[in-house]
């Protein structure tokens, strides 16, 4: 239609689409799915790190980790707000999460087993997230782009903190170094999976790229991530768990092994090591908190009634 063509032209001119403006239903739906999933990832993402706050090895590390997890909850808040501008409430999105209709990033279905995992999560998981998110600062939907700008700033800070943990571990005792290597071993392939399946298997991609909801292909971003991360691993003195990893002079990047995509689909389908626990924890938090939210609403109703009565 004409409207659709005009919309696409605005996007092509790099104009930002704002909440009240006309947009195709598909654009709206895709954005809700993408932003909602991202928001869910932030709040579920509190759990694997929350698992180590209580056992952080120093007060300083405990404070840094608390601040990080607090930031993540804050990101969740921005993102739910951005989604709300598209006409879906936070509670609706949460319900979709709790019922399993909406997903969160599968990386959070892996357990955090040692303190080095706090390093690996910051370095690799936040690193991969940033790689995804930096281009989204230029995404076509205004509220989303602005949320991304704010989030990216904090994420890159988190990534540096994660890398700093890895540096300390790698410069530490042999046991600490072994923990660091083990964390890299466990998080390497799941991090590569964070970019999604290979372009040839990826659905929706083309339309999302035309709409500038997605700015790069999965494989582009994955390559960029590997090229950035391998030298960082070398600097740490760690070995990337991929015997086929090597520099390819011709393409100016690394050749590397694909992750096991059957594992990826298994985890997406709910069969990762922690799916039941992660979703279960969120559902329990929500259900246990019902009286709290109801209580606050009851108070607000009473307060309103009193104000009206006093007028």
């Amino acid at each position, binding site marked *: 239609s004409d409207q659709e063509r005009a919309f696409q032209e605005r996007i092509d001119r790099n104009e930002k689409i704002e909440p009240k403006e006309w947009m195709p239903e598909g654009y709206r739906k895709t954005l809700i799915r993408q932003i909602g999933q991202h928001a869910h990832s932030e709040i579920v993402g*509190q759990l694997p790190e929350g698992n180590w706050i209580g056992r952080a090895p*120093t007060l300083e590390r405990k404070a840094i980790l608390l601040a990080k997890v607090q930031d993540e909850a804050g990101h969740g808040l921005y993102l739910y707000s951005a989604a709300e501008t598209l006409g879906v409430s936070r509670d609706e999105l949460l319900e979709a999460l709790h019922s399993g209709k909406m997903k969160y990033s599968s990386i959070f279905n892996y357990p955090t087993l040692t303190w080095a995992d706090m390093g690996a999560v910051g370095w690799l998981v936040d690193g991969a997230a940033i790689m995804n998110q930096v281009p989204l600062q230029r995404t076509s939907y205004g509220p989303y782009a602005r949320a991304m700008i704010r989030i990216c700033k904090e994420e890159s800070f988190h990534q540096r903190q994660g890398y700093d*943990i890895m540096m300390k571990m790698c410069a530490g005792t042999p046991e600490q170094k072994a923990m660091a290597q083990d964390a890299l071993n466990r998080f390497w392939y799941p991090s590569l999976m964070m970019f999604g399946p290979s372009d040839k298997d990826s659905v929706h991609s083309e339309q999302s790229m035309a709409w500038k909801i997605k700015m790069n292909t999965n494989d582009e971003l994955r390559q960029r991530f590997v090229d950035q991360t391998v030298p960082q691993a070398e600097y740490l003195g760690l070995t990337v768990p991929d015997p086929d990893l090597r520099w390819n002079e011709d393409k100016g990047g690394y050749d590397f092994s694909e992750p096991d995509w059957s594992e990826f689909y298994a985890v997406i389908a709910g069969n990762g090591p922690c799916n039941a626990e992660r979703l279960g924890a969120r559902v329990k938090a929500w259900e246990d*908190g019902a009286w709290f939210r109801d209580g606050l609403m009851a108070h607000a109703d009473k307060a309103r009634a009193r104000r009206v009565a006093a007028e």
Partner: protein
Amino acid sequence: RDALVEWLLRTGDNALILGQRLSEWCGHAPALEEDIALANQALDLIGQCQLWLGLAGAVEGRGRTADDLAFLRDAGAFRNLLLVERPNRDFGHTLMRQFLFDAFHLELLEAARASSDPRIAEIAAKAWKEAAYHLERSADLVVRLGDGSAESHDRMQAALAALWSFTGEMFTDDDHDRALADAGVMPLPSSLRPAWDRTVAQVLDEATLTHPGEVWQQGITDMGGGKRGVHSEHLGHLLAQMQFLQRAYPGARW
């Protein structure tokens, strides 16, 4: 000096243990705003604990850092109040514990800002601002939930009943307290009670909660109480988790 170290440990340990308890909520709070607020309060408390325990180690003069004090003492050497080591239970319980403590904490820090010891006064000035905000928040939520639904009212009343017997310990005076009072460093804990009583009575009243009145108080005999290092069974379990890495990998740097 012993009395000063003791006071610093008590104040720092309160912040540490309550911060640790609050951080258990991480990712499990009933609303995203609460996740953020609790993490923020825990962060404030851990920050305060670093300052208090750092000063305790310096005054003690045995070369122990704040981390050494936090991670390498066993339960009997901790000096926090029994109140702050109470388990989180439901969110109403956590909030009530926070309110009862915040109302005390603010008075304590108010007094500490005016301490004749400038090191104490300096830390307290920073911590006071945070505590004022914590109290504002916890008092507000106690009021809203107390005067909320029937269920939220009942839960807050139950939390109050369960926690009240742990508040008396905040205002007991012992020889250390008297030594500091004599030296003009800090007023007696008992002197903080009237202001706390007023705050609590006013908030409970606004929250439509029944004041528990006079009930038996825990930890106030000569043999007991967190201030003297006689804790509940909960603290040992908390420390086993909190201290694991420092215990399992002695001397490692993180």
